[in-house]
């Protein structure tokens, strides 16, 4: 897109939206949010960047191929379910640990890992579709 304002603002807007998507992802365990909606926000950010600066820039910025990101997400989600083997509880049971980092208690869980997997699957799959549509838009 040719608008100078849009092209100038897009990188900032994109980084803000990606940051917000991660906030929504992490908040999602107990409050509205989560991997799916967070992933959609991140894809919108990438789409804005792609419309403003071109698909090639987005592909370079995310480094990995979108489908590889989706694969990593699916893998993470599966692993999150399989961790419960070690604890002798059924598949996909939520397990928590509370390590303290710099005096701050950080709750980590397999549920979070699963949600991150969902986030990556959504980011990978939808951005793969969005980027190829944008590429073939014809300019």
């Amino acid at each position, binding site marked *: 897109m040719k608008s100078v304002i849009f092209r100038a603002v897009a990188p900032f807007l994109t980084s803000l939206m990606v940051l917000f998507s991660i906030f929504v992802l992490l908040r999602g365990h107990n409050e509205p949010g989560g991997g799916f909606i967070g992933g959609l926000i991140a894809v919108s950010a990438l789409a804005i960047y792609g419309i403003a600066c071109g698909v090639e820039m987005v592909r370079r910025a995310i480094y990995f191929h979108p*489908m590889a990101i989706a*694969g*990593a997400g699916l893998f993470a989600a*599966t692993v999150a*379910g*399989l961790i419960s083997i070690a604890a002798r*509880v059924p*598949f*996909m049971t939520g397990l928590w640990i509370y390590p303290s980092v710099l005096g701050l208690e950080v709750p980590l869980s397999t549920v979070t890992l699963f949600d991150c997997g969902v986030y990556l699957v959504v980011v990978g799959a939808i951005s793969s579709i969005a980027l190829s549509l944008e590429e073939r838009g014809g300019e």
Partner: protein
Amino acid sequence: MAATTSPPADLSAALVLEPVASADWLVILPVAWCLAIGALLVMLRRKIDWHPPIAVLGLAGLVVIDILLLRHVLASGPVTMVMGRWLPPFGIAFTVDLTGALFALTASVVALAGGTYSLADINDSGRRYGFYPFLMLLMAGVSGAFLTGDIFNLYVWFEVLLISSFGLIVLGSEREQIDGAVKYGFLNLVATTLFLITTGYLYASFGTLNMADIARKAEGLSGTAPLMTLTALFVLAFGMKAAAFPVNFWLPASYHTPRVVVSALFAGLLTKVGIYALIRVTVMLLPVEREELSFVIALAGALTMLVGVLGALAQSDFRRMLGYLVVSGIGSILAGVAVGGPGGIGGAIFYALHSMLVMTALYLASGVAARLGDSFSLSSLAGLYRRHAGFAALSLMLAFAVSGLPPFSGFWPKVMLVKAALDIGAWWLAAVLLLTGFLTTIVTGRFFLLAYWRDVASGEGGPASATVSVAALLPVAALTVLALAIGLYPEPLLSVVQNAAAGLAEPSAYLNSVFPGGAP
């Protein structure tokens, strides 16, 4: 956070608290294994040289897991694992009984054969396009459908395998593949939607989606809930999936278009998932209504058999003929479902397992024949016997197996089905079964005569020096040996299948496994 002093919640009412035995993990492992390997292959999308070995080893691992699962179920009866340790009926249960374990094992064997054949059939562009990830995710869907104990979860696995199969069927992106894919996709989406609507209807009537819970409540609700409507809708939805008459036309229209290995996997796996779901829902969940509908199912089965075999007789393309034979086999299975009882249901399960192995082997054999003779068409295929006598022998054995002739795997289920039909006095159904077997013999005999025994006219039938690789021939040979072994020594499988049928007809062990403490 006002109520900090509330008494501790009684977790035992909602959660599974006792530790899970390691062996019980076998219930979920086939699905998790396939998903993990599929995801790994998607991540390694650039390293296409790694895809075939990882996928074939993964499928071999799946066979091992399914063998262990079957052994576990044989030793200790149906096994349940609930996701996230929420107690059923709220937690989603994976419950494996003998039927599910048998189908899952056969599916993994078929997939391993297909995976091995694909080494010779799928080129670099197919690999880059993602054949192997799709294959692994397809197997995740198929395994999930066979192992789940929740009817909505069954729908989800149907979707998983459907989406993977869309990816597989358009592999190559040729014009007629897109044509086949559209017919296949449209009909399957209609069937899946019908399945989903019926599931919603079922939930409205029962208030539960857990299969064991439904089976338990079905008797009490028979006066008030519209169970006949539900059963009829389920039969239609799964019949469409399984390509039963009169909704069978999508299968011959699409199965000859994709790569040979994809056709082989579809013929072995997808229609059988529909049949499995039909058996599970009508025999175990709604048995009284199945009895009421049995004449309709029998009629559909008989017509499916005849339409299939007559269609096969009219074909001159190897793969189109096989598509019609798949349909005809579905008819035999439906006949068993209609007859019911240990003989009928056992025969139906046995026939389905036999059909998975033999139809896959036949499709793979059609691929080998096309490599040797450079065509799928009867008018130009000729002289295969002279080219490769060993392969011709394998094909002849498979032709015997699919026609239900001894000493191959098709014989015993056919005996069971005919006997069960005669036992309840459905002589016409038995006659159709026998007639179909006879006509199938003519179909395969005609093919063998023309494609294998006919001498090559000069300048016809492709290059005389065509060879086939071991990777293409080995799965055909292995599946044929399996069919022969089952035919020669059927006792173990017969007894397991009869136990499986008994477990479906009288699911108290299944219910106990889901609700160990009796009714909640």
